[in-house]
Structures are given as C-alpha cells and as structure tokens.
C-alpha cells in the first residue's frame, strides 16, 4: 500500500497535485487554514493511493512524500 505524507504548513493550496492525481483522492481542505494562511491539500482516501507520485511531480513546494 502506498503512503502519502504532507508537509502541510508549507502547502500553498495551489491544487496542482489535486488535478494531477489519477485517483481523484486529493482535495483542498477549505475548512482548514495552515500557518501561511492557505487552505492545504489533504488526502480523502489513502487506501486508494497507488503511489504513482504524480502529486509529488507537480508539487511546486515539495511538500509531498510518497512511499510505496
């Protein structure tokens, strides 16, 4: 099973990872605000993650760690 870890405080909520995810399991958490004042990304269903690292590839702030 693949695992995603987010460095949430550095997320700027740009959502490039959300669009890149082939499984559609990433979303911008509009109910949360990080230290920088952004809505950060979150994973809605880690079970479905296939560890393709597309989110990692598109993240401009290198906040995502992917293990598989």
């Amino acid at each position, binding site marked *: 099973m693949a695992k995603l870890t987010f460095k949430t405080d550095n997320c700027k909520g740009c959502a490039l990872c959300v669009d890149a995810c082939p499984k559609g399991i990433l979303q911008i958490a509009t109910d949360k605000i990080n230290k920088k004042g952004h809505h950060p990304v979150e994973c809605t269903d880690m079970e479905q993650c296939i560890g393709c690292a597309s989110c990692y590839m598109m*993240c401009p702030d290198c906040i995502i760690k992917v293990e598989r």
Partner: protein
Amino acid sequence: MAVFEKPHALIDVPLHYCPGCTHGIVHRLVAEVIDELGIEGKTIGIAPVGCSVMAYNYFNCDMIEAAHGRAPAVATGVKRADPENHIVFTYQGDGDLASIGMAETVHAAARNENITVIFINNAIYGMTGGQMAPTSLVGQVTQTSPYGRDPKACGYPIKVCEMLSELVGPEYLERVTVNNVKNVRNAKKAIKKAFQNQIDGKGFSLVEVVSSCPTNWGMTPKQALEWIESDMLPYYPLGVYKDRSAEQKEAE
C-alpha cells in the same frame, strides 16, 4: 520501497514563490539531478535577478547571486577557476537571460562554455510585478503592454533555443515544459542530460523550461498550465534544437 521526497540538494525551507508557480518544480528537478549524479559537493549554482533571485537560499550547494543578466559570465569565471572540480549551473528567467543578459547568453553559447543553463521562460517579468518580457507573446497583456504586445511597437518574442541553434558553438539545446506529469518527467531527463554533458566535458547545455506565472498572467495555477498548452507551446514548440554529440553519432 520506492520513496519520492524532497531531494538533499534542495534545502528544507519554504519557497517564496507564488502558489502554483512552476519555479518550485524546476528547482526540485535540478536538485534531484544533482542528487542522482552525486555532484552536490562540487556544484556551484548562479542565481539571477528576477523571481529566482533568492535561489541561493534553496539549493544546498554553494551559490552565487549574479548581477542582472550576467550569470553566464559569472559562471564562466567560476568554471574557469577550476574546470576539473567545479560543476556550474545558472538558473535564469527570460528577462535575465533573453533581454538584459542576451550578450552574455549568446557568447557563452558561442564559446561552448562548459556550463549548464536552466532557462525559465514564463513570458513575463514576475518579480517586478508583470511587465512585458522579451518572450511575451504577441497580444499578451502585461503592465507595460496594457493593450497587448504590439509587434509594430515592440517586435516579436524571441525564440531562444531556435536562435542559439544557429550557432556552431553550443552542445545541447532543448525546450521542455512542466505543465503535466509526463512533461515534468521529460524536463528532468533534459536537465539531467544538460548536467551530464558538463561532467563529460561536452560544453554549453541549455534547457529552456516553458513555465507559468499564474499571478501575473491573472490565472489560477490550473488555468496557467492550460495556457502553456494552448498559447505558449504553439509559439514555443518543445523539442531538441541542438545535440551535437547525437548528431555526430548519427553522422558516423
């Protein structure tokens, strides 16, 4: 177990770039390549003036901040100071590389200076708030072309790879983009080749990365990546514009 995470050559600090700015992706690709080639300890990076002026805070290797447009000249000095032991790259935007620093760019290429140049083309001056760049598209609205770039008044955007490919000097010129996962992977391959060429002593290698500037384009990050596809790439086609070693091999 496969792990994708922040490369060692990238310092673990928040980047100052705007949300969705692709500078961060290219920074990571450069750092990944430095890691994979095992050259961090001998690499010296040259930051430009522009949005990536503070790149010296982001790369773990030794860094120099150059005057606007002068990075290839500074890189020439650093490389020639110790050609065997220095791996030198510049990281420059379009205003830096193709406007104020055009002479330095062309001549470093003409000399086939053994350096690696990462060229971010996002068709705008980002740091100063969105003015017309030498690569701004015809009709593109910016702060200093408020009615759209008018070629009658300010000419046509410069295609750097095409232009440099007319020179005998340079070893390798490729244009890539980072607007989707596939293109990011290709961009990394090009950047790796550009560094490997330097290690192999082949000479001047430039990778032009067609990039986005959501803030100054007035778009969401997603729209900006789409605009790369719809508007930038037709004028700036991706591909290898010069690869002397490959050409020579083919000729043999």
